[in-house]
């Protein structure tokens, strides 16, 4: 279980909520309300205050890289640090089933990153995150650049993980998507969070 207590940073919070194992909460709210800031703060990517624990273990009790492998943030526009797609994966063979499940060609590891479309970047970014098998997924509009078919494949993969006990915070502007993937919704507005019906 992920427990967030009085999480705050400039422009955000304090915010408190709980996320059970295998539960998905949809994060909604206008652009610039602080949804991405909240996910970044939970992943400890910016200076912030408050308590965040995973199964009772506080973030501060472990090195930050270890925390981020368990509570992993996927930004809406994933970043890249090498020229070729394949260089971003430690082992392409293990990535292949996920790549194919997201309707991408299995040999796209040779593609130059510069040529990827927004939607391809998002799906390949999701593959990187899923390979870590984190306990909590922090997904920031993971389907904003995708067509209906690709969106469906992303939702299917994440729902599989949910069924296996992974928890998910899912930022979406699409109410129908929120209803498909989540049972609860948090509305973020002006840096504050409030539970609302789906």
């Amino acid at each position: 279980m992920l427990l967030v207590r009085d999480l705050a940073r400039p422009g955000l919070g304090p915010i408190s909520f709980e996320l059970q194992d295998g539960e998905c909460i949809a994060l909604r709210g206008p652009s610039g309300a602080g949804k991405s800031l909240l996910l970044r703060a939970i992943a400890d990517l910016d200076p912030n205050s408050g308590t965040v624990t995973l199964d009772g273990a506080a973030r501060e009790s472990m090195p930050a890289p270890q925390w981020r492998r368990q509570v992993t943030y996927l930004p809406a526009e994933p970043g890249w640090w090498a020229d070729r797609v394949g260089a971003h994966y430690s082992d392409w063979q293990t990535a292949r089933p996920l790549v194919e499940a997201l309707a991408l060609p299995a040999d796209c590891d040779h593609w130059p990153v510069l040529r990827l479309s927004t939607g391809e970047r998002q799906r390949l970014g999701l593959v990187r995150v899923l390979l870590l098998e984190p306990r909590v997924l922090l997904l920031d509009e993971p389907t904003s650049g995708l067509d209906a078919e690709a969106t469906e494949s992303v939702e299917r993969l994440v729902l599989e993980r949910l069924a296996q006990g992974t928890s998910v915070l899912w930022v979406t502007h699409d109410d129908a998507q929120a209803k498909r993937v989540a049972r609860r919704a948090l509305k973020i507005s002006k840096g504050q969070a409030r539970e609302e019906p789906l």
Partner: protein
Amino acid sequence: MSYIRLDYLDLALAATLVLLNGGLSLLLALRIERQLAIATLRMIVQLSLVGLVLTTLFALVSPLWTGLAALAMVLFAGREIMARQERRLAGFWSYGLGTACMLVAASLVTIFALTTQVSPDPWYHPRYALPMLGMILGNTMTGISLGLHSLTMSLVRERAGVEAQLMLGATRRQALLPVTRSAMRAGLMPIVNSMAAIGLVSLPGMMTGQILSGVEPAEAVKYQLLIMFLIAGGTGLGVTTAVLAGGRRLTDARHRLRLDRLAEAAD
């Protein structure tokens, strides 16, 4: 020794070349005469002053005054490093980090050379200490300012890629490695280039100076080699410490990228 003394008439004669340039600029309306005049005057004043200061220091041979002169050189070079940064570290770090790294690297290398290879008596004799420090400092300064410039600029540009690695659980060292590498390359490029081109493309100033003052070419070459080793060592040490320290300053113990520790971009 066949040293040819210059008198002021010789200098005046050479200076007519600069006057000629100024005249051409006026004639062709190139508008460079003002800058040229100011630069020439600055050069004359600065070099004459340095001549006076060095004459005094050489007469004194005082560790205190030699040390103070060396410190002043380091502080001036530190200002140059800061002035050349497009994105500076916020606060005192913008001056402190480059200057501290240069101070450590240049003084270590200079003292190492003075106490073991050149060994004048006393070892801090300003006639050896200050020119050697000057040459090492000048090159270390260039290296550090290029290295820090590359580090900050590529961290700003590659922010998404660096953070993507941090998000996936990389340590700050791993996430910064590509940026660190290119910053080190940028900082060491001038010295690597000048070592590769020396003798073929350029005859270094110090060696030329020694030859002009009557030293055998083979002896002048030995001195130049020594200086190049010292410069390469000092630059490498300075660039490495500055780039690594800069990378640590722009991240924190929780392995976050802290670009908020850069000052606002200058207009």
